[in-house]
């Protein structure tokens, strides 16, 4: 790599960082936040030190996480403290912690920035997780295209190992924890946690039936906890508690009821300042949109997908009334998902957008379940036909019928993820689909 390219890359690392709260994204005053020295200068690894000095027992940390109200940031929103409590800490079988850095949900680009800008927060969070759950080995599964984040993570792990923060007998505590990065090779489905485990084992990334859940039968059949990058990277700050050690209330108080703390929202699409915004949960959508510079070109808002391509789309009036937290988005007809806010202006062709989304799920279905394998193909072909001006009046009912037959009938949630956009686009923007179909009918006559 040329020196210039290297310089450009480093500068580029900051380009999507717009607002940080110093939890998962680094303090904006730091010049090279990915170094151990920088991370330490803002209190990094103090939480791990406190934990290993034996000032708190693992159950105390789990309580702190429960109080903090942090929910999994990978999409499903399961409480992190509760998940960690499922691990059989006392049993002496080998246990694992696994980080899901596969980041494949369209519209999501936050975990890449956490790894490029703040790798030590992830390392510290995973090491604390290892201690709490009695796991001596961790794997960070990074999507295959992420060469730069992988290199930054490898370097950060090397630094941490050299400083005695990873490896054997960490800080003289008797606790061992090894951490390794595993690079994927291109497959959205590997973001699903059991597919990810199969991929870590060197197999095809096909989801497993659940139960058994990973806490009982995970990597190599051993008890395993899988969390998203942002979930692990939030842990050190929660334990630091802004000076009040182990006080989950601090983090909880940054957010609102049911949605503790801060969250990174990746705001993309038709805004003036796309980027990652680490802000308080419960922020009104209007405010977030304003932070992102508002709808570009002075245009009006038409619709928003608030949590990545698999959550339901929301028309402008619904999202403008909502706050960015789990409950509010649900009340207004969608979900927080991974916090990937895709903004669409008044000129957006909704049929075209849905066609692109449907194509994605069709391409990425692993093919194990018939409803998903066949259904995603049907959805894509019908929507493409409508968009190409070859739609027929019965198509919309067929679409809904196919979507309803996929939903809830598959091994993993990719099936649902393919069905929800179709159902919500038709619910809110049916007119646009009908227009294209009607025009098709007229051109046949002509």
């Amino acid at each position: 790599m040329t020196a210039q390219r290297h310089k450009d890359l480093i500068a580029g690392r900051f380009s999507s960082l717009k607002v940080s709260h110093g939890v998962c994204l680094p303090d904006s005053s730091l010049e090279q936040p990915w170094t151990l020295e920088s991370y330490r200068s803002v209190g990094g690894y103090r939480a791990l030190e406190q934990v290993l000095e034996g000032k708190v027992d693992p159950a105390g940390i789990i309580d702190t996480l429960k109080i903090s109200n942090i929910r999994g940031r990978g999409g499903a929103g399961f409480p992190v403290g509760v998940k960690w409590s499922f691990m059989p800490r006392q049993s002496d079988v080998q246990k694992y912690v696994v980080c899901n850095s596969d980041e494949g949900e369209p519209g999501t680009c936050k975990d890449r920035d956490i790894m490029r800008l703040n790798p030590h927060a992830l390392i510290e969070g995973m090491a604390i997780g290892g201690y709490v759950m009695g796991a001596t080995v961790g794997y960070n599964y990074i999507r295959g295209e992420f060469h730069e984040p992988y290199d930054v993570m490898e370097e950060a792990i090397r630094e941490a190992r050299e400083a005695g923060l990873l490896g054997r007998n960490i800080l003289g505590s008797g606790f061992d924890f090894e951490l390794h990065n595993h690079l994927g090779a291109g497959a959205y489905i590997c973001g699903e946690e059991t597919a990810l485990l199969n991929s870590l084992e060197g197999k095809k990334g096909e989801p497993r039936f659940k139960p058994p859940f990973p806490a009982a039968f995970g990597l190599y059949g051993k008890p395993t906890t899988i969390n998203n990058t942002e979930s692990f990277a939030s842990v050190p700050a929660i334990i630091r508690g802004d000076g009040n050690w182990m006080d989950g209330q601090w983090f909880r108080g940054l957010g609102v009821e049911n949605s503790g703390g801060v969250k990174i929202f990746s705001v993309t699409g038709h805004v003036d300042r796309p980027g990652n915004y680490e802000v308080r949960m419960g922020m009104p959508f209007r405010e977030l949109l304003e932070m992102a510079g508002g709808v570009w070109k002075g245009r009006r808002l038409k619709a928003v997908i608030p949590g990545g391509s698999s959550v339901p789309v929301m028309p402008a009036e619904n999202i403008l009334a909502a706050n960015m937290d789990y409950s509010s988005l649900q009340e207004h007809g969608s979900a927080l998902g991974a916090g990937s806010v895709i903004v669409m202006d008044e000129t957006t062709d909704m049929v075209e957008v849905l066609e692109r989304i449907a194509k994605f799920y069709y391409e990425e279905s692993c093919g194990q379940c018939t409803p998903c394998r066949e259904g995603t193909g049907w959805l894509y072909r019908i929507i493409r036909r409508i968009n190409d001006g070859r739609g027929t009046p019965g198509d919309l009912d067929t679409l809904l019928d196919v979507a309803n037959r996929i939903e809830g009938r598959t091994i993993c949630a990719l099936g649902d993820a393919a069905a929800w956009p179709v159902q919500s686009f038709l619910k809110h923007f049916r007119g646009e689909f009908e227009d294209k179909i009607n025009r098709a009918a007229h051109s046949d006559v002509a």
Partner: protein
Amino acid sequence: MIDRAETTLSEDALAGIQGELDKYPPDRRQSALMAALRIAQDEHGWLSSELIEHVADIVRVPAVRAYEVATFYSMYDLDPVGRHKIEVCTNISCMLRGCDRVVDHLKKRLGIGFNQTTADGKFTLREVECLAACAGAPMMLVGHDYYEDLDEDKIDRILEGLE
């Protein structure tokens, strides 16, 4: 350990594969299969069936396991490709910010379509799904490097900088 007597891979590649094997329990060598295939591909440009079988031998897994993995994941190339792989994201955030123009410009400039390679073997062009750089849309991946906030001028400069 890896048997160095009969291999078409360099010392560096073998050391890289050994480093990957060391990440996993000794009886879980298959976990290093994805990395071993990647390292072999980086060295040879693409994965021929002989190379896949060779990697399977090194990792000590049945060849059929290596074929399964090589065909399942999209980043393994089972046919020859150009020196530079240009992969343009056309997913939703990139689409909203004009990836069509990026695609048109690349196709015109290179004189090829998706999944084609230029006659001089320099470039292969592909369409890919979201690469998690949506805030820098429209974007493309060239080899290992991300290029974001693309427009026609920027693309020209990037292409000119490639050997």
